[in-house]
């Protein structure tokens, strides 16, 4: 098989070399436009549905919007893995996560079909909308808008009607959310005292205002059917009739007369003040010293961050002439900058690696032909595999590049062996000789390549976030190894036959000295010593690995992103003005820190955005300046934020924040008992019982109920007998107080391609304090007024700040930790006890454990690892010809990478991504070095066989070290956070693998080869040297 391939390659060498050049050229050109991102897309397929209902409390949102949506509409969606929702004051969000592998578009289609039934929901707020799909790290840019001469309302008009539509039309942009948006409204602020004085009812004001406009959403108002203008056909012409509204300003609206006031004429301005205003805010932005707006731009999954950033910045530059007086700042959060600097750093190091590689090649080989062959093989493998990844549309992220660097040992080994054909021995003068030699050199390497491909397979069994990271790295690694093998079979022989054309290679004195030195060393080696060293290496490796495996989770690489996000939480129920004040102070203080630049913040939430929080939560974004010491600056920021009493701060980079959020969804507490039920009070009682039960289970400690944050809410309950006396119904009371406290949109104004609301509201003085609620004056049918407090009970009661549902039911959690007992036993014990515990009707409890799911994942990985070991053993047996030798190589080759295990603690442990990839690289290198040696030992006495392998093995090690050294030495900066520790671990393993392969392996294996190798079908190996 190999002979056929090589023969073809040599015969059509011009074609093969031409193709290689084309691949090299095309690859380098097209890779410039490849998608690059920091992390792979780690979020499971998910869809979010949001419904806004400004002014509704959390409990009412749950009752009126969330429950009907969840139970009737969305629970039946196929492929659903989990459905949970959150009901906040004014917002209902429902998150649906789908089984892994679900096609997102199909899932969205299914959800959309269910949502078409949403017209059956009560008419409060906006109808439910399916949010655009966004990537896991969805925020691609944040733009801070500030204005010196414009009011915030005017700025919002520009942002909402000019900037946002333009940006949303760009390819890759999924959503643009505006924090601090103040929608222009004409507000008719009614004064109940003046209503009383003129004998006008609230209903009359509402109807009159609505009827004065062209269009109204209120069905009981005549303007809900605006009518058309019509047209006149004369004999000759058709002339259309159009109505132009005279109401464009607050002043003109205030002159409208109120309907049904009898003989006297009462205008709106006599019973109310008509002003320009904006809607009640659920969020705000802190930009600069004055107020401003924050635009948050999110991208679709699979969109390229840099491309989208560039498109947005170009669009903003185009719009700038029309936006004079507005400051546009796109640097508050700009992940593309991190990617740019990461690529720059990587490029510099890659170039250094390349130059070092060439230098070492020339210094050692002293033959430009050999150097060229090695260099072309290595670079073609790298560019080829990257190009294949680009062609399948993969995104290049930190794990892809890590995987490719981990494969560098195998790549170099293939290149060196390819050159070995031409370096050693007599000249390759005929095609037949070339084919023969290549085949004999490559035969064991095929097995080595297969072993190298099998090594990372257990990582594919990981789940969740770690799984997506692992898949990214393994795919890049496997592709690199495969392409290297192809290059070694095709391009290397073709290029070699072209370069040498029958000439012999110049002998290099350095290499000859190397072989002689090895002879001297080998003479002193004895089998016993070698065995002793091998056993020692195994023991050390075992002793060093076991404690490191105890860490609970595979640690993912953290990018040294200079953009920090601080999630800031105040006491439940804090008001927006207070949160604004504190956030402005915090931002001002952060700006004064040395090394911190470009600080901005947003509070609460925005329409159709990614932050389902209330106004007591804010996010502050700060950047560490280029050149400022990273760790020290982050520590200073942390210290500032921790210095605020009564506020809780959480500091992270945005991608790390998103990863933590996704991992929280997967669950990580040791023992969690989740109690489901419809009633809040009963839930509290049941969780109390279960907490007591958990405390009695042996091995369980620290059982506590997860607190449900509560805030005071004013509740109004109409007293029916009292209301009857005045002829009022509860609905009348609700609608009247809703108009005066929350505002009622009664119509729309159309102006200049924009639409504005006209709202009837109460005057600010009538809705300033909780006492004003009871003092509200309500219209009594048949003239007169009555105080709200006289017909309704006004009380303050504690209400949950957010109501969460899991699987369409309310729940509360009881968590506990486990010590001194196996967690599986504890979980089954708890389950047994719970089964015997009687619970109230409609309540049930479930036990879950983050660690148990992790344990089962652990088991899967271990089983697959065992299968891989067996497969590698089989492959080794094919190479070595004896089971005993195969077993020895299987044990000794990885043991040779003991250096990786010893170096791993310096980079955080062997279960970090860097530790695992580095060990993979070293073990793959060990196998690539050991397998040809073992094959050679079968044919000749151990020492002689080893001597022949000295040069290729040492060359492989030195060249790989040359490639890895620039990454290992130059410190962990942006882009090299994974590669630097990876290179350190790989280098350590490489050194010990080299020593073990040359000094220990031949002695041990040579002794084991007592039975002559079985005859093979192929030609016997030609004697060399």
């Amino acid at each position, binding site marked *: 098989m190999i002979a056929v391939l090589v023969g073809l390659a040599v015969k059509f060498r011009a074609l093969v070399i031409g193709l290689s050049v084309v691949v090299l050229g095309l690859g380098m050109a097209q890779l410039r436009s490849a998608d690059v991102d920091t992390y792979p897309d780690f979020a499971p397929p998910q869809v979010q549905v949001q419904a806004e209902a400004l002014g509704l409390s959390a409990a009412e949102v749950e009752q009126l919007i969330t429950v009907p949506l969840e139970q009737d509409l969305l629970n039946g969606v196929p492929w659903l893995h989990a459905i949970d929702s959150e009901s906040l004051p004014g917002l209902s969000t429902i998150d649906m996560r789908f089984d892994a592998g679900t096609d997102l578009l199909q899932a969205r289609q299914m959800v959309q079909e269910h949502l078409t039934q949403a017209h059956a929901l009560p008419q409060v707020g906006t109808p439910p909308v399916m949010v655009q799909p966004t990537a896991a790290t969805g925020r691609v840019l944040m733009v801070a808008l500030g204005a010196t001469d414009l009011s915030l309302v005017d700025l919002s008009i520009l942002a909402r009607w000019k900037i946002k539509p333009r940006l949303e039309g760009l390819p890759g942009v999924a959503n643009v959310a505006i924090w601090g948006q103040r929608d222009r409204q004409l507000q008719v602020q009614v004064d109940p005292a003046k209503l009383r004085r003129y004998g006008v009812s609230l209903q009359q004001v509402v109807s009159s205002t609505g009827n004065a406009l062209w269009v109204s959403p209120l069905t009981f108002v005549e303007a809900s059917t605006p009518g058309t203008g019509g047209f006149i056909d004369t004999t000759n012409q058709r002339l259309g009739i159009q109505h132009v509204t005279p109401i464009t300003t607050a002043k003109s609206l205030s002159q409208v007369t109120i309907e049904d006031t009898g003989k006297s004429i009462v205008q709106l301005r006599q019973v109310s003040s008509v002003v320009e205003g904006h809607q009640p805010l659920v969020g705000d932005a802190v930009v600069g010293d004055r107020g401003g707006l924050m635009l948050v731009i999110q991208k679709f999954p699979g969109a390229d961050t840099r491309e989208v950033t560039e498109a947005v910045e170009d669009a903003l530059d185009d719009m700038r002439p029309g936006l004079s007086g507005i400051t546009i700042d796109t640097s508050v959060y700009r992940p593309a900058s991190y990617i740019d600097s990461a690529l720059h750093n990587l490029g510099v190091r890659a170039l250094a690696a390349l130059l070092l590689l060439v230098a070492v090649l020339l210094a050692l080989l002293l033959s430009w032909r050999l150097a060229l062959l090695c260099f072309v093989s290595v670079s073609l493998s790298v560019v080829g595999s990257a190009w294949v990844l680009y062609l399948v549309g993969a995104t290049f992220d930190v794990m892809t590049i890590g995987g490719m660097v981990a494969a560098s040992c195998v790549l170099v080994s293939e290149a060196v062996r390819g050159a070995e054909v031409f370096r050693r021995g007599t000249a390759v003068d005929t095609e037949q000789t070339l084919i023969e030699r290549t085949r004999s050199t490559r035969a064991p390497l095929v097995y080595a390549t297969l072993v190298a491909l099998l090594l990372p397979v257990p990582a594919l069994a990981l789940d969740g976030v770690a799984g997506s990271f692992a898949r990214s790295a393994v795919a890049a690694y496997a592709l690199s190894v495969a392409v290297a093998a192809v290059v070694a079979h095709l391009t290397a022989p073709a290029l070699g036959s072209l370069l040498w054309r029958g000439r012999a290679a110049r002998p290099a004195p350095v290499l000859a000295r190397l072989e002689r030195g090895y002879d001297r060393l080998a003479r002193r080696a004895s089998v016993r010593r070698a065995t002793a060293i091998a056993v020692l290496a195994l023991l050390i490796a075992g002793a060093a690995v076991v*404690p490191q495996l105890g860490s609970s989770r595979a640690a993912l690489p953290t990018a040294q992103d200079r953009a920090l996000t601080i999630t800031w939480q105040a006491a439940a129920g804090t008001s927006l003005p207070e949160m604004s004040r504190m956030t402005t102070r915090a931002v001002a203080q952060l700006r004064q820190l040395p090394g911190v630049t470009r600080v901005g913040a947003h509070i609460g939430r925005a329409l159709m955005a990614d932050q389902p929080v209330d106004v007591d939560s804010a996010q502050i974004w700060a950047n560490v300046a280029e050149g400022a010491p990273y760790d020290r600056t982050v520590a200073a920021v942390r210290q500032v934020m921790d210095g605020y009493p*009564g506020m*809780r701060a959480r500091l992270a980079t945005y991608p790390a924040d998103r990863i933590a959020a996704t991992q929280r969804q997967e669950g990580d507490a040791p023992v969690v008992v989740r109690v489901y039920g419809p009633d809040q009070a009963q839930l509290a009682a049941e969780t109390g019982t279960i907490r007591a039960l958990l405390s009695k289970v042996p091995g369980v400690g620290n059982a506590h109920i*997860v607190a449900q944050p509560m805030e005071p809410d004013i509740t109004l309950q109409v007293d029916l007998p009292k209301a009857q006396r005045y002829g009022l119904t509860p609905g009348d009371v609700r609608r009247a107080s809703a108009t005066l406290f929350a505002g009622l949109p009664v119509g729309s104004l159309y102006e200049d391609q924009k639409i504005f609301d006209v709202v009837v509201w109460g005057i600010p003085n009538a809705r300033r304090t909780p006492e004003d609620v009871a003092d509200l004056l309500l219209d009594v049918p048949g003239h007169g007024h009555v105080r709200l407090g006289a017909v309704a009970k006004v009380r303050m009661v504690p209400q949950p700040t957010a109501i969460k549902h899991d699987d369409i039911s309310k729940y509360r959690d009881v968590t506990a930790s486990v010590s001194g007992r196996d967690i599986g036993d504890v979980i089954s014990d708890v389950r047994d006890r719970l089964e015997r515990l009687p619970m109230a009707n409609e309540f049930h409890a479930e036990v879950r454990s983050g660690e148990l799911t992790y344990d089962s994942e652990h088991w899967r990985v271990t089983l697959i690892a065992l299968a891989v070991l067996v497969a590698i053993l089989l492959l080794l047996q094919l190479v070595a010809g004896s089971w005993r030798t195969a077993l020895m190589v299987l044990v000794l080759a990885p043991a040779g990478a003991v250096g990786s295990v010893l170096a791993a603690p310096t980079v955080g442990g062997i279960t970090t991504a860097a530790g695992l990839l580095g060990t993979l690289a070293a073990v793959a290198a060990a196998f690539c070095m050991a397998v040809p040696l073992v094959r050679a030992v079968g044919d000749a006495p151990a020492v002689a066989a080893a001597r022949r392998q000295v040069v290729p093995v040492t060359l492989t090690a030195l060249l790989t070290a040359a490639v890895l050294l620039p990454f290992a030495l130059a410190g962990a900066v942006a882009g090299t956070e994974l590669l630097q520790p990876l290179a350190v671990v790989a280098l350590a393993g490489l050194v010990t693998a080299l020593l073990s392969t040359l000094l220990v392996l031949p002695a041990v294996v040579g002794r084991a080869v007592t039975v002559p190798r079985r005859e093979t079908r192929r030609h016997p190996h030609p004697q060399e040297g």
Partner: protein
Amino acid sequence: MRRPQVTVSAIVLIGAVTIAGCARHDAAEESGAAKGPATITEVTGQPGIHRVRLTADAAKRVGLQTATMRPDASGRLTVAAAAVLYDERGRTWVWTEIAPLTYQRAPVTVVRVAGSTAVLTAGPAAGTRVVTLGAVELRGSEEGVPGEE
């Protein structure tokens, strides 16, 4: 030749295990400073009431402001409306300054809010300094802020 070899091997083995032991270095950072911005102590005899002592730096960060309680023209006790906090059950409280940078909650009964002044029927004596700006942060220190799981 064998004994020195064994010794060497033993030393190397011990060294390796020591290095491995260092692998279990605690990655957990010291959470928070040893001295936080606020110290909370329970008040004996008043369950649920705590005394909150702020560092000078913390008070400056919050921009804490206080005002004195004064009787109004007709002799009724008044306090700035901005000082009144509502708890979950609707009871009203103010934060009084009992010592420099030390604050404690005290109950008040509000009868009416006129403009920016709240008229009280019960509360701390006139002349008490109460917190008018930053009361919510003191409440957050005392009760704890709901954390993200």
